[in-house]
């Protein structure tokens, strides 16, 4: 699964730790999700999408291997 969190962060002009604080997780979690090392829970994905004001499917996209 790929994601556009880095781009969405750039649009909002917030750092990883600022995003982490807004959705109540650690900065390490954001880093792991951005670098595709960790797939977030549905709750976390929905929280991010709500913050970015976009549907979840436009932030997270399935890949061939999924």
């Amino acid at each position, binding site marked *: 699964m790929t994601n556009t969190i880095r781009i969405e962060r750039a649009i909002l002009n917030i*750092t*990883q730790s600022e995003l982490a604080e807004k959705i109540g*997780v*650690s*900065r*390490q*979690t954001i*880093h*792991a999700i951005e670098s595709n090392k960790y797939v977030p*829970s549905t709750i976390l994905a929905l929280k991010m999408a709500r913050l970015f004001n976009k549907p979840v499917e436009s932030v997270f996209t399935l890949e061939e291997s999924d």
Partner: protein
Amino acid sequence: MKNKILLPHHWQLIGFMIFLVGFLGGLSIMIFNWEWEPLRVTLPQWLPGIGPGLFNSATNNLTDEISLSMTLLGLCLICFSAEQEEDEFIRHNRLESLQWALLINFVVLFVATWVVYNDGYWYVIITAMVTMPMIFLIRFRWMLYRNNLQKDLP
């Protein structure tokens, strides 16, 4: 989503202090054969093996019992206390580290069964009791440390 079986973060320090006392006691028993004399008592004993009846009494020095209990209790408290900023990624690392620890412990026990015999095997079993939580903690803390090294990206 809260993990209900985790204790508050400060139990980590309390657990570590209990572990340290127990572990140092255990080490001095294993290396120097040290036992604290006032702890020699006669207590009821379960499953004595040889002798009449299921229950018996035995005279025993409790230094090793107390050391091992403190080591296990301390490790248990450290393993089951939450991180300061506990979230789902940390929980994910926690579970993965547990799997690794269980797997490594199985491999070590399997190998030890075929290469260690007689009295030595007793030491393997005693050690295996504390190495599983220890391997878990080392792997878990290492993952947290490594993730912490990443810089905050703009």
